[in-house]
């Protein structure tokens, strides 16, 4: 459950860790777009090399990288087999490299930047939106509530499923309905509690 709340952040002190989160976010986005737009084998391999280099600079443990790549590997092999057969091996290598590059860079970003830092950045980035009526403080509050309620929501789902099991009811709706009803009821109560605390309503 703890990884649920902190994501994949690995504390560290490389310059990648210290880089402003906003910059990292923008750079990663640009990287993603580049992967999609640059359609050639050399570009794909080049981007993969860049991602790998960054992972090394961030001193990410090999285990973390492998675990992240594992999920994608099966797909990648399968896909490249199909493509290699249809469009030649260069296409296949490109797809494989693209997929791996994206995953690796994703790991670099999430392991060098804490969820909180990214959240602060996101909220700060919303400041200009104040003019069109978005209140960054309320946005931050909503984020915090969602993150906070993640484990509780999973627990609620488990408990509701247990209750249906205890009554010997099988149909999924028999626990999905009470589960969702409880999620909504709890949200109403949370809303009332915030309201009562005078939070999020100035």
């Amino acid at each position, binding site marked *: *459950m*703890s990884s649920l709340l902190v994501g994949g952040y690995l504390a560290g002190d490389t310059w990648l860790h210290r880089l402003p989160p906003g910059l990292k976010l923008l750079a990663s986005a640009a990287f993603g777009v580049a992967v999609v737009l640059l359609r050639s084998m050399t570009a794909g391999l080049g981007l993969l090399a860049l991602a790998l280099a960054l992972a090394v600079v961030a001193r990410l443990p090999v285990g973390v990288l492998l675990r992240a790549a594992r999920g994608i590997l099966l797909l990648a092999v399968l896909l490249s087999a199909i493509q290699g057969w249809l469009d030649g091996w260069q296409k296949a290598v490109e797809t494989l490299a693209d997929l791996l590059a994206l995953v690796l860079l994703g790991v670099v970003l999430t392991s060098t930047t804490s969820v909180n830092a990214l959240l602060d950045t996101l909220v700060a980035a919303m400041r200009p939106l104040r003019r069109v009526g978005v209140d960054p403080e309320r946005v931050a509050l909503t984020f915090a509530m969602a993150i906070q309620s993640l484990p509780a929501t999973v627990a609620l789902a488990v*408990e*509701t499923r*247990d*209750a*249906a*099991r*205890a*009554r*010997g*009811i099988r149909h999924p709706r*028999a*626990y999905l*309905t*009470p589960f969702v*009803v*409880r999620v909504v*009821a709890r949200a109403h109560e949370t809303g009332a509690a915030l309201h009562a605390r005078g939070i999020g309503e100035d």
Partner: protein
Amino acid sequence: MPLIRLDEAAVVVPGTTGGGDRVLLHPTSLTLSEHRIAIIGANGSGKSTLARLLNGLVTPTTGRVRVGDLDVARDGAAVRRTVAFCFTDPAAQLVMPTCVEDVELSLRRRIRDKAARREHAVAVLDRFGLAAHADQSVHTLSGGQRQLLALAGVLATEPAVVVADEPTTLLDLANSRRVGETLLGLTQQLVLVTHDLDLAARCERALVVAEGRVVFDGPAPAAVEEYVASVTR
């Protein structure tokens, strides 16, 4: 009455923040043969974990739990038909939109005829003082009324054993007496997790749970005394 037996049953969950595993219940052996058994103890001591073991909502990590000839881990569904469970939060158990429909759901297996089923459901509601609310949406009931309804739904199936996890916590004086009387008056075996020590004292036997262990097991009044003393000292 099928005998419930725990044989070195323990519950361990993987640790959350790094660290090792977390023991929710240390290996415990028990034979539950009394008619009415209470489980008392502090918040987070493991009462609910122990209670959930009894009908397979939690399966032991090591050791075994048996109900009569059935192994709880293997024959889960059959065990749950024998051992009913009542949750603290009634919202967890209420499935159907109106009160009477919810009780009817429990009766589905036993009573095939629709009209007869409804009639029986209304009779069950009446026993819990909810007949007037039969067609009311379950969501407009007060907390206490909802708890009564959840109990009605569970007892309607006429199980052999009833495990109730703090069934009276949300109830007022009249209702908690009523539910207390109803539970203690059941012909079925009852395992009652509760913070209401007066109610606990009226059982034949009580277990005191602390930090994942049964630290006292004996006649209910003595157990309550022991527990109160442990809190005050």
